[in-house]
């Protein structure tokens, strides 16, 4: 027990990879065995995350459950792990979504072994970013997590998977080049990559560097960081890889891609950009807000303009993640004020909420795609009487995504709007246009899938649409329960976030 407590983070982080190595030695034809091993293995990190959640002291200052191991002594980079309220929330989200995504992948029968291994490696990659307290380790995991996702899209994806996976990989890597250079500069300057130490020294640095005033250097690196994270979030206009990657990825891949991977970008803003560059952030808050509002508005409109159900959901991510960045921009402009704290609370909760609702929506699109082999909204129509349970679940999840009060999305969007309004009134007002069209595209999806005259093609014969099955209900049920619980009683999670934001900013 003592060992578990003192190594909780590294256990959560590396158990999935360990399980992947175990799966390597399982016989290739035992698909069932492999699936269940992967599922059970991914449930352990989740259970440990719950332990982590309850063991976490939300009032305590600084990082908790810290672990530090020598890694690359020559350049003074260590495997330094730790969580605060911000990363804890994201760790919980990741370990929750991974087992659900694996369970959702039980219908995969092509090269199950490789698929499940990649999935578990992916989990380690994602968790590593959230836990890392060392910039080099952060960057390492940041890149590591791309590889399994690339192969998942490239090998198990849809028709246009080569284009999508390449665009995804190149775009994200290209975006991170500046981040790598920036991190190296910091490492060289201070002789350490440790986040806490670097933050302290870097923010107080003055004078000149490499012959330039330090302010100019900071501005340049600030933008390098921003671009890296903006591609990942994704912020308009860096978002066009997302609809392609999401649409082509296998269902469970989309769940994690939208559910967790987009959060890495937003997390980067909160963990690195705001703490390392408070002045630049405040100075360029207007530009960030502009990009955020463009993402909100154009994301909503682009979603509304789709005829492919999965693309519609993909674009909804651009729209929803825009609210995260709007909260970040507002907080950047007025650090330390009550409004900023409210905006940040909203932004972080929105990250968590979007993880639930986007994963849920992608899963539901996958459920119907598996049965009909089409994603074209015009091919459906009036399916509600055929699949009443699926219909009810889709309505519920859509409403959570729409931000209906009483469900989770509303709480976070309200907090962002409330926090951003006094700081950035014009941008907040324009963002309302996006909120309006969120309704439009969600209703468009429901209209074309569930409502209207029944498309007889699906009502009998070999094409007869079958109801969502028990396994699939088990995948979506925890997500729905959380959407409702956070909508009605958000304090349990918001309290942790709130305290973390108060300490960070």
């Amino acid at each position, binding site marked *: 027990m003592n060992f578990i407590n003192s190594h909780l983070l590294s256990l959560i982080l590396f158990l999935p990879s360990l399980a992947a190595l175990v799966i390597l030695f399982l016989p290739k034809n035992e698909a069932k065995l492999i699936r269940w091993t992967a599922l059970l293995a991914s449930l352990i990190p989740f259970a440990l995350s719950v332990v982590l959640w309850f063991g976490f002291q939300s009032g305590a200052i600084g990082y908790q459950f810290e672990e530090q191991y020598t890694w690359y002594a020559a350049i003074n980079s260590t495997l330094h792990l730790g969580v605060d309220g911000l990363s804890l929330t994201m760790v919980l989200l990741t370990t929750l979504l991974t087992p659900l995504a694996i369970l959702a992948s039980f219908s995969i029968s092509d090269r199950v072994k490789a698929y499940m291994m990649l999935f578990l490696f992916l989990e380690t990659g994602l968790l590593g970013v959230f836990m890392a307290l060392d910039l080099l380790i952060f960057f390492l995991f940041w890149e590591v997590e791309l590889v399994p996702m690339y192969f998942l899209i490239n090998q198990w994806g849809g028709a246009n998977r080569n284009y999508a996976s390449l665009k995804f990989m190149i775009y994200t890597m290209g975006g991170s080049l500046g981040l790598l250079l920036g991190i190296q500069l910091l490492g060289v300057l201070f002789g350490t990559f440790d986040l806490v130490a670097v933050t302290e020294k870097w923010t107080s640095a003055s004078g000149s560097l490499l012959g330039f005033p330090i302010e100019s250097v900071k501005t340049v690196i600030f933008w390098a960081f921003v671009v890296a994270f903006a591609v990942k979030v994704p912020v308009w206009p860096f978002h066009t890889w997302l609809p392609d990657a999401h649409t082509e990825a296998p269902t469970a891949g989309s769940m994690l891609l939208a559910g967790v991977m987009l959060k890495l970008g937003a997390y980067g803003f909160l963990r690195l950009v705001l703490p390392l560059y408070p002045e630049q952030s405040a100075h360029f808050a207007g530009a960030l807000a502009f990009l955020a509002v463009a993402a909100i508005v154009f994301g909503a409109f682009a979603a509304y303009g789709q005829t492919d159900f999965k693309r519609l959901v993909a674009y909804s991510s651009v729209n929803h993640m825009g609210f995260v960045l709007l909260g970040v921009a507002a907080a950047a402009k007025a650090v330390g004020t009550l409004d900023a704290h409210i905006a940040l609370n909203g932004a972080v909760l929105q990250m968590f909420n979007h993880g639930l609702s986007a994963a849920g929506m992608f899963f539901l699109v996958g459920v119907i795609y598996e049965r009909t082999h089409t994603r074209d909204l015009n091919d459906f129509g009036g399916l509600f009487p055929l699949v009443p349970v699926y219909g009810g679940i889709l309505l519920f999840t859509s409403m959570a995504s729409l931000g209906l009060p*009483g469900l989770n999305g509303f709480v976070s969007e309200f907090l962002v709007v409330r926090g951003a309004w006094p700081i950035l009134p014009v941008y907040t007002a324009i963002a309302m*246009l996006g909120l*309006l069209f969120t309704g439009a595209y969600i209703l468009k999806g429901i209209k074309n899938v569930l409502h209207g005259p029944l498309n007889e093609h699906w009502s009998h014969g070999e094409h007869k649409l079958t109801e969502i099955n028990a396994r699939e209900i088990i995948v979506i049920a925890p997500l729905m329960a959380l959407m409702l619980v956070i909508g009605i009683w958000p304090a349990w999670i918001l309290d942790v976030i709130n305290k973390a934001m108060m300490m960070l900013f």
Partner: protein
Amino acid sequence: MTTELLIWLIPLPPLLAFFLIVLFTNRNKALSHTIGVGAAALSWIGSMIVFARALGVHELGKEPFHSAINWLPTGETWLKIGVLIDPLGAAVLFFVSITIFMIFLYSVGYQNFGQPKGDHDRAGLPPHGATVTDEHGHTHTVPSIEPMYSRFFAFIGLFAFGMYTLVVSDNLLTLYVGWEIMGLCSYLLIGFWFAKPSARAAAIKAFMTTRLGDVFMLLGIAFLYSATGTLSYREIFTEETLHVLAATATPILGLSAAGLIGLLLFIGTVGKSAQWPLHVWLPDAMEGPTPVSAMIHAATMVSAGVYMVIRMFPLISAGWTEGMPLNPTMSIIAFIGAFTALFAATIAVAQNDIKRVLAFSTISQLGYMIAAIGMGAYVAAVFHLITHAFFKALLFLGSGSVIHGMEHGVYHTGNHKVDPQDMFNMGGLRKKMPITFWTFLVGGFALSGFPVITAGFWSKDEILADAFANGHLAIFITLALAAFLTAFYTMRQITLTFLGEARTEEAKHAHETNWTMTAPLVVLAFFAVTYGWVGIPEHFPVLGGILPNWFHGFVGSTLAEEPEALDFSWIPLGTSLFVAIVGLVAGWLVYRNVEKPEQDKLQFPVLKNKWYFDELYDFLFVKPAYWFAETFVYKWMDQGVIDGILHAFGKVTGWMGDNIRNYIDLKVINEFVGDGTGNVVKWTGRNLRPMQTGRIQQYMLAAMLTLIVVGSILFYFLAA
């Protein structure tokens, strides 16, 4: 149980009913409606107890029932939510709980409980009737039960939860929660028969139009919250806070903060209460089952919009006292209300669908309330809100009963081309459906403001009196004109539907509906008459003072300063008597002999087509939005420009790669350096080959020459 705890519990039974029905009992219709109606009854009982206790509290306005808990952590503080019942809340709770309960009960009959399953019915379409064979071997077509019967009760349960939440809230945030849940439910219920494309479109239209108002409202809430640090009414409506808000200037239209917040919130009401220019969704909402129309248009959703502006009256009127000119926000509100009242009334005159007439009359009547609150006639607005809820719920349920009766006729004749909602297919129904007729007559007269005995007279008269007394002549004349039209089209409706002789075979075979539908009509008719008597002005001739004006004192005490009772004047009273009587008589005279729509001289195309607002909005907003989304944002911007740039990067990179390969790698490195070196060596080798002759003399000669050359060089360098 403490009253506060009871108030917390009031919204819960319908919510519980929703979950129980959806998750467990949806296959059992009887159990589902028992749960649904039972939940409505429980909430009603709770509300009545709270209302009774509220009456017993001295000065409830100053010491309301109130309790709050922490909900959202925000920095060092918490956003609290809670429940509040003050006089306004108690009065609203009273009518909401009664009408909701009655609508639930009515739904049992309306959705054909106890009837056989339809022959070809499927979920998503209205029931089409079932064929039954009686003991003599004759086959009949009879109404069939709604296939989604249980689902209906689940949805209206959630709807009721939303309304109760809104009423008992002590703050704008939970009010907004209830408000939006009702928005969802109206979407689900208007589109209840979702397989009909018209119902599907109407549902989306309702949701989107109201959401347009809601996003402004959300901004208003955010603004208010950031300006005051709270959303609780009791904390906002303190003299100090209101004073600050009224004194803070904003850059928009020269409004004060209070005025701008009020205006933003009011736009939410414009959407929810279907005021011009966001009125377009409500007539289409008639696609839903009739009890839903009653829920949405009388008891709950549209009332919610008016309730919210009434609630916010202290904020909207901050800095204003009675007798002063209206502040800008109030002027806008009063203008929109009065304009809508007249505008919608003109359209109602030219409608032939029995429910659509009521829909436009609802818009018009809501305009009265909005105009009243805009003029500062607080008590009159609340009064009309409540009386209207009773008589309009009554009228909608009555019209549903008529439609049901007509459907009987349609099943009897088997002619499904006859529209059971078209008033020109009716006539003479008073004999066939006496209870429906008499209660509808009560409701219609209340709507028209038939003097003295109906509730509508008292509340409408109070609004007119207020407008006149405070010198708002334009509003007074507009509302009086609208009142005339109201009486006129109401009598038109009654005449076409119930009076004269049956115009179709179907109308001849209509018959009265069962008790679950008629009992609610009787109960609501009772209130449509008597509720007016609790608010008779003190100075009214003869009647004034016989009954105390309880309503004015009770509801007025919600405000920090109780409004003064008006002095009596004959001019508004005379006007309201005149327009009601003349309108009713004119309606009867014009339509008593009309047989066919062609004989109706007032069906001007512009009125029939609702002043072409649907077409205008389609042209101005709907089509451009679709073009903007699909063509501009997606095809041009994302796929054209942004992806174009990305692909250009890709192409340039590829081009560079190709060129490096073709011109540097292949040409320079491969051909020039790599192959070139080889070629040179080969060439040299080839040219040196003739030297390998195999003759020893030549080799010796070459060796000697080499020796001489090397020797001379060495000698030259070393010796020198």
